[in-house]
């Protein structure tokens, strides 16, 4: 995808990510986060990972942010006051951030840029088709319209992802399903109103909580 | 299911039975009795036998694992037989000393039996794996016994003894594994002692050194050798009577048995060089340093505990002689010390239960209140300080004679150590008589006149004293079981080069 678009979207993502951190008001922070996710989804689509891009928008930008906003509204968290700007913590945070950045920079530094940009690595449709015919009879389920799209030179991303997901990673899919189920049960128990939360003892708990 | 297996399995079964509710004292007494008779039968049977090549009278072996060559191999030779007898006698005495209605009776009786099983297993098994395992088995009841049924600050003492002996066992394990891996010879890794003995001497000097170091320190800790002796006093002071009797009397001999059986014969080169100097130095520490501490003790049980640590010094001297006289003396002394310390701990326990205290300043004049008890305690005390007629003296005199056997003119380091060690008999006389004086003679103190010593101690004491007297007057009963020529004795491989010394002519010898 053309360079200017790429620069725009990456600047968008990075800028709003920093905005999330810098912003004191959680609501604006949440909204910046949404914009950052949108920029990110655009990058995904630029990398021709359409399914992931859409999912990103749906899950993150949609569900997660909505959840955040909903929580913020529910708990009417006031603006974080500025009273003590803890020097040590910020210094620590920045130091770690810069340190890791340097590391990654170092890695990238002597990394021989094999492929500078997208068009050095075009998708070879013919090769893909020949391979698919080669193992056609090998019993692996292949989605018909994916091959058809390939012939026309279009990357039917969702079909291919689905093919891969249900061929090679079936078990993992089930586990993920179970995980999400447990997560929901967890949330429900935590969220219950009158549950005697372990340390919410009416006796005011220990002194740490009387902030 | 040979007699050896019965000896070991019976106590374990009995302990289990007690656990499941069988009447504690009766089962324990029955088992101890049967074990005692079995060991006597074994003793008289072995006297008729002639030892086979490796010195064993009787050996059975059922393979268990193939590659690491572990097999349930039991065997009894002269040394093991003496210690088996010691174990069964002390077990019987310990059971008799403990009253049926004592607190934690079931725990006490089952731990006596388990310690006995552990000790018997260790002494009888000729397979290092079981040799080690049985010892660890015996440590558990000691910990439980002291921790639960003890008195004074028993928890601290229980922890201290267990952690200390645990470390000791760990170091020992390193040594043993080193030994097994290096000395297994061609046929793959084997735990069998006899095979290891065969390949033992072929080890290179360097490997021998660190293996010997592991064994030496490991056994040293288990036997409270000088620097590692600080666990003994608190443990025995706060241990219940039977546990103290069993541990001091029997279990402590495991380390020495191991030294004599494994460390000395298998590693002649190593055990000649730096090790002998260290051993001599440490045993002097045992005799003189701990001896002085014993004099400074203010209560009977800690004094007895330290005196048992001190007597270990003599046995180490016997081991350090590396000749048949020394090692036979050591075996005799092990037996004698085991019995006498068990007797004294038994009586001390009886004193603590009936009179309420064992501190010297609170006791006095018990001789007029309980003459029989005073007489028996006197016999025990005199036996432990080496009065002729008792087995201790026979052992001690042989250890000293052994240390001077290859003397031949110039005073070597062994002779100097022996001379300093002989001063130990004065130290032991001092603390034993001082204790006897404070407890039994002089004016009757408040604590001791009102109480009467309940009966129940007579029969076990007479049993133990009879054992001491018999072996004291006729040490040959044991001696002709032990190897009598220099070559067959453990550890004499190093002195094999020395010309055999018979009387009447000046004998040259390799510089010791």
């Amino acid at each position, binding site marked *: 995808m053309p360079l200017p678009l790429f620069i725009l979207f990456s600047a968008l993502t990075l800028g709003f990510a920093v905005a999330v951190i810098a912003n004191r008001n959680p609501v604006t922070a949440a909204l910046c986060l949404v914009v950052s996710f949108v920029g990110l989804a655009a990058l995904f689509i630029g990398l021709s990972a359409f399914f992931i891009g859409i999912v990103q928008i749906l899950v993150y930008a949609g569900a997660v942010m909505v959840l955040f906003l909903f929580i913020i509204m529910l*708990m009417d968290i006031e603006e974080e006051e500025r009273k003590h700007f803890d020097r040590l913590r910020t210094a620590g945070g920045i130091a770690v951030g810069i340190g890791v950045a340097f590391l990654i920079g170092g890695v990238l530094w002597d990394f021989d840029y094999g492929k500078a940009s997208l068009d050095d690595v075009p998708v070879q449709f013919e090769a893909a088709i020949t391979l698919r015919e080669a193992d056609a009879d090998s019993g692996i389920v292949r989605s018909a319209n994916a091959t058809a799209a390939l012939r026309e030179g279009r990357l039917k991303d969702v079909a291919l992802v689905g093919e891969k997901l249900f061929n090679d990673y079936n078990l993992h899919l089930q586990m993920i399903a179970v995980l999400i189920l447990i997560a929901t049960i967890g949330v429900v128990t935590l969220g219950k109103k009158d549950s005697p939360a372990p340390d919410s003892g009416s006796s005011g708990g220990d002194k740490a909580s009387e902030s | 299911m040979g007699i050896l297996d019965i000896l070991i399995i019976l106590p374990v079964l009995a302990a289990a039975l007690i656990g499941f509710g069988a009447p504690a004292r009766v089962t324990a007494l029955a088992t101890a009795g049967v074990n005692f008779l079995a060991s006597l039968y074994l003793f008289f049977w072995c006297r008729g036998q002639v030892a086979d090549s490796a010195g064993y009278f009787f050996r059975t072996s059922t393979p268990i694992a193939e590659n690491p060559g572990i097999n349930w191999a039991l065997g009894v030779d002269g040394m093991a037989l003496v210690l088996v007898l010691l174990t069964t006698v002390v077990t019987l005495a310990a059971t008799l000393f403990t009253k049926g209605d004592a607190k934690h009776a079931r725990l006490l009786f089952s731990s006596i039996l388990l310690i006995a099983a552990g000790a018997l297993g260790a002494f009888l098994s000729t397979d290092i794996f079981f040799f080690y395992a049985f010892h660890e088995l015996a440590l558990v009841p000691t910990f439980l016994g002291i921790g639960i049924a003890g008195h004074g600050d028993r928890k601290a003492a229980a922890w201290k003894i267990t952690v200390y002996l645990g470390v000791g066992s760990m170091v020992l394990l390193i040594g043993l594994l080193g030994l097994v891996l290096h000395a297994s010879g061609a046929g793959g890794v084997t735990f069998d002692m006899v095979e290891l003995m065969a390949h033992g001497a072929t080890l290179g000097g360097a490997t021998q050194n660190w293996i010997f170091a592991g064994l030496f320190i490991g056994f040293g800790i288990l036997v409270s050798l000088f620097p590692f002796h600080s666990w003994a006093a608190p443990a025995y002071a706060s241990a219940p009577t039977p546990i103290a009797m069993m541990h001091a009397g029997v279990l402590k001999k495991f380390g020495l048995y191991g030294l004599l059986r494994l460390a000395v014969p298998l590693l002649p080169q190593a055990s000649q060089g730096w090790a002998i100097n260290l051993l001599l130095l440490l045993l002097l520490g045992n005799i003189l340093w701990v001896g002085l501490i014993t004099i400074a003790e203010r209560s009977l049980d800690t004094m007895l505990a330290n005196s048992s640590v001190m007597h270990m010094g003599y046995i180490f001297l016997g081991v350090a002689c590396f000749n048949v006289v020394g090692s036979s003396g050591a075996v005799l002394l092990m037996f004698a010390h085991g019995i006498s310390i068990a007797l004294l701990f038994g009586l001390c326990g009886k004193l603590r239960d009936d009179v309420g205290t064992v501190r010297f300043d609170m006791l006095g004049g018990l001789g007029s209140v309980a003459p029989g008890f005073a007489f028996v305690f006197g016999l025990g005390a005199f036996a432990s300080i080496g009065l002729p007629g008792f087995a201790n003296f026979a052992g001690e005199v042989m250890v000293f004679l052994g240390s001077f056997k290859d003397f031949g003119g110039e005073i070597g380091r062994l002779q100097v150590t022996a001379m300093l060690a002989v001063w130990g008999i004065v130290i032991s006389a001092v603390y034993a008589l001082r204790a006897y004086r404070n407890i039994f003679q002089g004016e009757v103190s408040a604590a001791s006149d009102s109480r009467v010593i309940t009966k129940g101690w007579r029969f076990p004491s007479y049993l133990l004293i009879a054992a001491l007297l018999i072996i004291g007057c006729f040490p040959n009963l044991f001696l002709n079981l032990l190897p009598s020529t220099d070559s067959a004795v453990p550890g004499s491989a190093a002195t094999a080069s020395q010309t055999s010394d018979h009387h009447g002519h000046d004998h040259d010898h390799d510089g010791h």
Partner: protein
Amino acid sequence: MIIRRSALVILMCLEIMLSAANLALVAFSRFRLEAGLPDYDGQMLVFFVITVAAAEVAVGLAIVVALFRSRRTIDVTTLTSMSH
């Protein structure tokens, strides 16, 4: 994540970190052709990361709510009862 005091913002930063990881994965899966097509294994991982992140946020927020209800604050620096 280290600087901000509010639990919510920490969760948001967490999301950012995860999405950064996703970006790297997708980029690699695109640039490395396997059998002529972009290597979808990478995308599988992204897919799993997203689902797990979603579950994680849900639970995270539930905890934050519970905390808020019991401690009236979600300021991380005061919630140190775990230390003693």
